[in-house]
């Protein structure tokens, strides 16, 4: 039941750390952990747009691509996707080699052509010296970079409402069945380029072509969440519906009241 303890690690597994070299620095890392996490947890920055630590690695944005080699193979270098690459003993990694930087530039240039209006991408591209794309800009461009985070988030939430439709350059993100959407906003909040629009007005939340009436806190009347969220959470967690009747502030205050009742 309790997940909040460290994952049980047997001693034999614990010993399975590997020593790798990233940009000349020697680093110990648990075997099999992905290169991106190892680098980031050691303060080495690798950019990425589709990686999310809570979700299965996707490998779509190609920004986190780094160059690897092995001792004695110095002439052999290969670009690998760091968010997917499990670290192994003796790996030598370059996160800012000329090849890596060139790749990032081209990829960002391509992204910029895809989403010329995205501030996030413009900023990131500018960091790599690209202020305007060299390629043909997409017409009527939205801000979606097809990183797939929203799809994976929705899957994790359990609503499974979002999907990519079609394929190739025509691919796009959509909620093909708005009925399945619970209006939890997790997708919009996780989107790295703020491409998923939503707004709330007069107790109505609008997202993915659909209006959701917000349930109000029974104590203070503040709109808190959608009935669909409640139904979904009840089904998923087994918690009773009353859990969702009040907003967190009111619940906190209630807690204070019960403390006072017990104590005095």
């Amino acid at each position, binding site marked *: 039941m309790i997940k909040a303890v460290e994952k049980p690690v047997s001693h034999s597994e614990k010993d399975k750390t590997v020593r790798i070299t990233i940009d000349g620095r020697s680093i110990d890392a648990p075997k099999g952990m992905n290169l991106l996490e190892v680098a980031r947890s050691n303060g080495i920055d690798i950019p990425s747009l589709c990686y999310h630590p809570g979700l299965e690695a996707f490998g779509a944005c190609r920004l986190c691509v780094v160059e690897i080699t092995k001792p004695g193979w110095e002439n052999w270098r290969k670009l690998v996707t760091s968010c997917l690459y499990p670290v192994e003993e003796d790996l030598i990694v370059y996160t800012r080699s000329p090849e890596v930087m060139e790749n990032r530039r081209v990829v960002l240039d391509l992204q910029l052509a895809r989403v010329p209006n995205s501030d996030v991408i413009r900023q990131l591209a500018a960091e790599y010296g690209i202020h305007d794309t060299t390629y043909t800009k997409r017409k009527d461009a939205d801000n979606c970079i097809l990183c797939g985070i929203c799809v994976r988030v929705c899957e994790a939430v359990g609503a499974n*409402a979002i*999907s*990519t*439709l*079609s*394929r190739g350059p025509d691919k796009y993100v959509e909620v*093909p069945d708005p009925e399945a959407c619970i209006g939890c906003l997790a997708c919009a909040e996780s989107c790295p380029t703020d491409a998923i629009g939503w707004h709330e007005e007069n107790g109505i939340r609008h997202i993915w072509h659909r209006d959701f009436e917000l349930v109000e806190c029974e104590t203070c009347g503040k709109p808190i969440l959608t009935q669909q969220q409640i139904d979904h959470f009840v089904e998923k967690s087994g918690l009773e519906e009353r859990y969702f009747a009040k907003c967190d502030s009111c619940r906190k205050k209630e807690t204070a009241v019960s403390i006072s009742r017990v104590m005095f």
Partner: protein
Amino acid sequence: MSEQVAEKTCTCAEKFNGTLQAIFDRYPREESSLIMVLQDVQEELNWLPPEAINCVAENLNVPKAKVQGVATFYRAFSLEPRGKKLVKVCMGTACHVRGAGMLVDELERRLEVNAGKGMSPDGEFSLETVNCVGACAMAPAIVVGENYYANMGPDKLKRLLNKERES
């Protein structure tokens, strides 16, 4: 939980007079049957109407969004009604170098339909370009229904279409 859903009686299958039910019975009701089931449904209905997609999703216990994703990803599926006969122009390399592109242009003109979209005004034909039907030796090739036409040229199309219209 999954068993519960599987037992749920299907409300949408009625629309299709039980034909879809027969298809679902052919395969295990799980995600890995999805593509096969969609193919069979399309064979039955000639396209994939939205209700049928929902029905498949419900019966295989796969989220509708995923079914939509799969149905739009694979070329085999048509999400809009198609003409009685499907004209497939092979766009394999062999056909390309022997002038398949011309055939598409000419067919689009003659049938008043765009390749891969909708059907001719008379509802007879839909036009599709396909990646190699494996008849490279007969390039350029056209397949209408189940008939293969070899060594096609734009000048031969009129006769071909007339023949297919009649049969």
